[in-house]
């Protein structure tokens, strides 16, 4: 394919697409849009990131550190205003900053993030409180979603969404801070505690 379209300037095509998207774009999705191998697209994205960050070009020409940057967040790539200009752009964007999550909601979110997929009952047994309304809040905010319903117990299991990753500014769950392996295998000891 590449030989048929020798003229396509990949980094430029990608930045054109990135101008119209309103969600993080996966490398695979971008690759299929430009009909190029994933590897090439990956390299082009890396080049764009360096370009916007003002790194010198291959030929040594000094770069320009742009007022925007390309970030990998929530499973894909997206153009962001560079952090130091966030104050300046704030007045131009009517962001509805959502109400802050309560401490209880944050802790419940943490439990779900680390133990997903997890049922409400299992969350409640860890949090020692009724978590129904908190779970509804998290669902409504799109931070968690229903993963599956246990066919035997009918218990809905929840998992976190890509929106959570976006709101945390991370690209995958692997970037969550380690809290310890205990949360995997220590479970059995607690199951009977309610």
């Amino acid at each position, binding site marked *: 394919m590449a030989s048929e379209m020798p003229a396509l300037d990949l980094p430029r095509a990608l930045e054109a697409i990135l101008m*119209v998207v309103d969600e993080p774009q996966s490398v695979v999705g971008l690759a299929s849009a430009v009909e190029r191998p994933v590897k090439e697209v990956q390299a082009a994205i890396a080049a764009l990131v360096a370009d916007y960050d003002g790194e010198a070009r291959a030929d040594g020409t000094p770069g320009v550190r742009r007022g925007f940057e390309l970030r990998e967040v929530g499973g894909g790539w997206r*153009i962001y205003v560079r952090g130091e200009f966030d104050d300046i752009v704030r007045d131009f964007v009517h962001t509805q900053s959502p109400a802050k999550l309560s401490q209880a909601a944050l802790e419940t979110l943490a439990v779900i993030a680390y133990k997903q997929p997890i049922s409400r*009952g299992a969350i409640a047994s860890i949090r020692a409180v009724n978590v129904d309304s908190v779970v509804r809040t998290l669902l409504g905010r799109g931070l968690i979603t229903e993963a599956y319903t246990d066919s035997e117990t009918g218990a809905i299991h929840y998992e976190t969404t890509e929106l959570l990753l976006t709101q945390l500014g991370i690209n995958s769950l692997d970037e969550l801070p380690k809290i310890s392996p205990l949360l995997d295998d220590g479970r059995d000891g607690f199951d009977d505690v309610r």
Partner: protein
Amino acid sequence: MARSPEPAATIEADAAPTGFRVTLDDFDGPFDLLLSLITKRELDITEVSLSVVTDEFLAYLRAMEQDGSIDALDQASEFLVVAVTLLDLKIASLLPQGELVDAEDVALLEARDLLFARLLQYRAFKEVSAWFSRRIDEESTRHTRSVRLEDQYRVQTPELVWTLSVDDFAALALLAFTPKEVPVVGLDHLHAPLVSIREQAAHVVAMLRQGEPVTFRQLIAGATEKGVIVARFLALLELYRHAAVGFEQLEPLGELTVRWTAENWTDENLVNLGADYGQ
């Protein structure tokens, strides 16, 4: 990460001592060394009083708090690994033998061990939730390009294929408005009822405010649900945090005596109690 199970045995290899030391009848040293000895079967797990370790760890946390070093999540989480592994080991070794004579002692011991582990797990999530909060705050100030599609592209999107009649649409609305509730049928009997820490705190406060010191055993007397015992214990911790109670324990595994120490206590304090726990 939740999906990469780490065998607890790796703890043994990692001998980096935490700052937390324990002093038991036949052991005095770093807590993870204790675990090493147990896993190498050089120390009998049933000889180790987790309740003493609990008390010492709480004291250790208090000391850290006073030092202002409570942020040491690393240390706390490392400790958690050790503690819970210990608990697992202990449960495993207690169950088949069941040598202890006093059934009430066994029950109390198990309840306290479980409380201990729960408390630790609870703390871990509480602490990591601070990271969530910070990251969400930081990220909420970030701006991303999210502009309307230029008209030329919008016009060229494929024509919408609409197949719904107005009645279909109304049916869909009905579906959308029906609250998504978990099917609760048949689940209740599987779970003990949820327990309110605040309600249990009210019970604890009522007992303590009579003036006389009360033992923990007395405080949980008559409680058959583990959840109630857990809640009363957490209530006590909360009350302690509000400087409303003091603890006294003369010897490891000895009677834990609770004394009412609040000077200005109103029911309003009670209302706020346990708010951290979401209820």
